[in-house]
């Protein structure tokens, strides 16, 4: 696809993209080609692409949602970084890590509110996300108390064991 300034995205391309999205079980789809941008979501409250995604470590990007296996991006360049190449975490911050490999979800079910939002105060028992393995959804508890500063894992994406999911500023 062209990435130049004068992109040639035709109406039928958009129709095709919408069709692909409908037939998938993806939660959202964000396509950017030059100055053309398309955002599709099953979430009626969605306002646009999750910007947290852009901040996700680059090495995580190739992972596709399980249902989209056939469309997965090429494998990452080697050597493979340990647990997905976490970006550094600021001093004094705590992290919540993935208990196993699986797919990361922020809310208990599609369309329902997220477990937590940035800025929210949590305690050790707060459920913060779901990790899914073959349709088995396991809630993850914070294990630590504080204020959520960043949600680093991306909705619907594969996370590896021990990967940083959420960054929390400890309570005093």
């Amino acid at each position: 696809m062209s990435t130049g300034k004068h992109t040639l995205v035709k109406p039928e391309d958009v129709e095709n993209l919408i069709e692909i999205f409908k037939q998938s079980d993806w939660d959202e789809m964000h396509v950017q080609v030059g100055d053309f941008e398309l955002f599709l979501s099953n979430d009626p409250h969605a306002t646009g692409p999750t910007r947290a995604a852009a901040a996700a470590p680059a090495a995580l990007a190739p992972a596709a949602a399980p249902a989209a296996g056939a469309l997965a991006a090429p494998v990452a360049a080697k050597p493979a970084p340990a647990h997905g190449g976490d970006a550094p975490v600021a001093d004094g911050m705590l992290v919540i890590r993935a208990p196993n490999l699986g797919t990361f979800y922020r809310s208990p079910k599609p369309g329902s509110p997220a477990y937590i939002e940035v800025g929210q105060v949590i305690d050790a028992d707060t459920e913060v996300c779901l990790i899914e393995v073959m349709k088995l959804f396991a809630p993850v508890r914070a294990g630590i108390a504080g204020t959520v500063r960043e949600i680093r894992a991306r909705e619907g994406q594969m996370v590896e064991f021990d990967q940083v999911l959420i960054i929390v500023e400890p309570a005093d």
Partner: protein
Amino acid sequence: MAITRVLSVNRGEIAARVVHAAQALGIEAVQAVSVADRDSMAARNADRTVVLGPAQSRLSYLDPKLLVHTALATGCDALHPGYGFLSERATLARLCAEHGITFVGPRAETIAALGDKLEAKAIARAAGVPLVPGTDRINDVAMAQAAAGELGYPVLIKASAGGGGRGMFVARNPEDIAAGFDKASNEAREAFGDDTMYMETFVENARHVEVQVFGDGKGHVVHFGERDCSIQRRYQKVFEESPCAAMPDALRAQLHGSAIALVASLKYQNAGTVEFLYDVNRQAIYFIEVNARIQVEHPVSEQVTGFDLVQLQFRIAAGEPLLLTQAQIPVRGHAIECRLNAEDPYQDFRPSPGRITHWGPPRGAGVRVDSHCYDGYLVPPFYDSMIGKLIATAATREACVERLADALDRAEIGGLTTNLPLLRYIARHPDFIHNDLNTRWLENTGLPAFSAHQE
């Protein structure tokens, strides 16, 4: 259905072997690891590595759903199970099939049928393969004593779902049965979740021989000769060789024919090994079981036939036809493998994990080392202790034994305790040199002599 990207879900040397074989065929390799294997050879060589979970196998290598989820999430279209772990668990093969992932191995139903030892014996019997005289299910001590009276002592009492010697014992008289039966059936229930027991005639002078087979899944099967794996400790093989030099050609032909008949009857797909007990006194062979996977000792068969069996696994799994005829697989020369383990042969084979400060495998013509180790590699304490396999190949068994002994002398492994002293001792033992062995040689003769030799 070509394979473009495979998930390798095992560890150790076989994972490194699988990654290498895939890449040689132009298949991208994704290596799934536990956190303890992040720095393993397979992880380093793979095109991508993903961390499944913590070190415990149960939470990583032994979770079929986690493995299939990983295959899907990383865009793999195939999964290679290696050996051990879930390689012979029909659940994994079935789950792969259900999700459009090509399982590099036999069909799930074949694995399930062969995994049940009583069913496997029924399949063998139907294919005309000779079996050790034995019984069906044995429920209790009284039934076992009556059956043993008919078979004649000594008898071997085994768990139907068993393996690795667990839930198994030899009884030489009715008292032995009374003393051992309940313990063995409890052990079987603990280890396998199934306490079904059965009984066989116990063969006093036995060799373990096995036939490497491959099938295309449509009924065409070929073999890659046999292996003699008689040097064992607690049912774990230590030395393996091909061919079985002690076997007369007429019996060898019957051995191969039996193996082929059995797997052909299943329309067997991919690699497998048909194991037999070779009753040296009676010059007879008896079917033991089929291992529906690639085995640790496959390299000796590769060495004497010239085929890369792991690559062949991928080709068959990808749906390529098996065009080989039996005449195209001649066995030439002799190969012997021995297993290098991080364990202390002077301390009852206690595992000795740790950091390898120097990894200096022997090199040279006719010497092959399959290993995942390197300078600075940490052998983790969570898994089996095998750190590599040394394989010697030569024109004759005599020359091969000499080459193996020489290669073992030149092996240098620093930083941890290994079984190298025992391997060296066996390789120079007259019984090994003269091939005067059976499955109890190591425990009854080799190990006591080794211990005495050190004093």
